[in-house]
């Protein structure tokens, strides 16, 4: 058999005479009695973790590069050159953590879904697994959120490395983690919508049209209250789910910088998550079943 798979048929096909009636077990194999759809969902999650784990360095490079440059140019270069005020790093860092969580979550659902639903059909084997179709969508979102969370966590050592120190208060640690999880889920839910509603030939243009405004209206590079004199932009920013993650983390990590109240960030974030998931699940079901 040649490595390119173009071997002649005869050398790849075994003698049919050797094929006996032992091709398949005649009786259906009974899986463990307690096997439920949620365990199928976990098995699918295990597959995704297995594949990502195998190429973990590539995954890290993918998610680190953009925030690393943003952090370096805005947080280090511009402040060292005197174009940004010294305290700007502390405003920027929580926003970039939020950006990493949301963007990575989004890209981790949107792109694979577009490919798996159209070119590769790979998702079919999972849609034919014994769990509700919506379970496959939930698994996608959970897995993408895990990637988003890892990307956000990785920002902390990078921040220490580039900025020398990062704002961190032990007392708000748990809330910070919760906000990072919420941000990752929000990104993944947005990706679910993009991945199921956008036709494959439109995904490039959609990414350009969606990602750029998302990145720059999400208050990751500036605090929302400071936009008071730019009212229309403040309103636009208030529509972006990323804004609440940026502001939430800012409030928890640098409470002395003006920010949207943390409870409001959590509340709006959760409402957004419910709405985005509902829309995304509807789109997923529409694509998965006809």
């Amino acid at each position, binding site marked *: 058999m040649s490595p390119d798979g173009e071997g002649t*048929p005869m050398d*790849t096909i075994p003698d049919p005479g050797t094929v006996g009636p032992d091709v398949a077990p005649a009786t259906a194999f009974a*899986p463990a009695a307690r096997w439920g759809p949620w365990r*199928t969902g976990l*098995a699918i999650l295990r597959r995704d973790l297995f594949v990502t784990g195998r190429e973990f360095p590539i995954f890290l490079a993918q998610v680190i590069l953009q925030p690393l440059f943003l952090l370096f140019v805005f947080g280090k270069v511009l402040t060292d050159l005197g174009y940004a005020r010294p305290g700007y790093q502390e405003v920027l860092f929580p926003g970039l953590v939020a950006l990493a969580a949301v963007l990575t979550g989004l890209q981790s659902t949107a792109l694979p879904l577009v490919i798996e639903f159209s070119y590769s059909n790979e998702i079919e084997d999972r849609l034919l697994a014994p*769990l509700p179709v919506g379970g496959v969508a939930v698994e996608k979102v959970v897995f993408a959120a895990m990637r988003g969370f890892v990307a956000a966590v990785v920002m902390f050592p990078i921040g220490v490395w580039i900025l020398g120190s990062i704002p961190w208060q032990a007392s708000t640690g748990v809330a910070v983690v919760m906000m990072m999880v919420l941000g990752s889920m929000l990104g993944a839910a947005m990706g679910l919508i993009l991945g199921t509603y956008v036709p494959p030939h439109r995904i490039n243009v959609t990414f350009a049209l969606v990602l750029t405004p998302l990145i720059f209206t999400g208050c990751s590079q500036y605090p929302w209250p400071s936009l008071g004199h730019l009212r229309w932009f403040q309103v636009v920013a208030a529509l972006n789910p990323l804004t609440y993650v940026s502001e939430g983390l800012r409030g928890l990590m640098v409470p002395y910088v003006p920010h949207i109240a943390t409870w409001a960030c959590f509340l709006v974030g959760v409402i957004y998550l419910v709405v985005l998931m509902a829309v995304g699940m509807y789109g997923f079901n529409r694509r998965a079943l006809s």
Partner: protein
Amino acid sequence: MSTAPRQTAAGAPSGPGVEPSDRGTAVEVRDLVKRYPKAPVDSLAGVSFDVRRGEVFGFLGPNGAGKSTTIGILTTRIRPTGGRAVVAGVDVVADPVGARRVLGVVPQQNNLDRSLSVRQNLLFHASYHGIPRARRNQLADALLEQFGLADRPEGRPDDFSGGQIQRMMIARALMHAPSVLFLDEPSTGLDPAARLFLWEKVAGLKAAGTTVVITTHDMDEAAELSDRVAIIDHGTVLALDTPERLVRDMHSERTLDCTVEAGPTGDARSLGLALAGLVGVRAVDQLDDPAGTGWRFRIDVDGEAAPFVAPVATLVADAGARLTDVRLGEPNLEDVFIHLTGRALR
């Protein structure tokens, strides 16, 4: 040509070729209707049939006839507009999750997991279905061996040929030991050797007791593999029986295909009329002659065709022409199909 429905006892426990049995029903389909939004006509307009346990059931029809829609509903990927479908005792609409446990699907297009090796494709599929680790390792090794894939278990699907991909997908579908296996156009794009291998495998599955439902637009495949065949067109089942019975029901028609070298006198039309005048001849059609050197006739006769050769030769000679070729034709599934639908399959 008649296009009248000729639904011969869909699901009735009769018919030669399949032993009358009480082994039960593997697939039960009743009045299945599928109407896609904005479509002018129903994709399925009330399809009913039964597949018996342990049989190979062929689903034969041209593209767009409703085969894939029916299989899509049975495999829980398409929701019917109306009707009922039960696979291995599980209602696919009411309990799609339960149905997915008992059915296996080999799709027309490669949907293998390209991030995983061949062996991992099998193993992860089994894990989705709750097969314990030791058991799935053992099963994967056995199936890789049986499907001739054991020498490259760590290769990625992209590095394999079409026939090998097909075998991988069948092996994967068998990992959870489905009661009913659906094969959608399995031999499309396969070379003859790979096709033969596939046919052997299907025979092996049947011997092992797995019910197999195959869709195809290939007459030979349907006749070779299937215990019974359903002919479907325009979303309805036109006929359902064993291939032998379907063919026999063609009023025992036989055909003679004659090629005639034209003589200096006479014309094809008057010769055709003379042939049609023979006792026992049902119809005479003049066919196109691609070579353009003579005339070709297809003569439909009652009973055996051989006794007609001599009188036909005499008539041809009387017309001053010369008979250069005669072929005696038995009706096959394709003739049945054309008879039922008024159009050729491809």
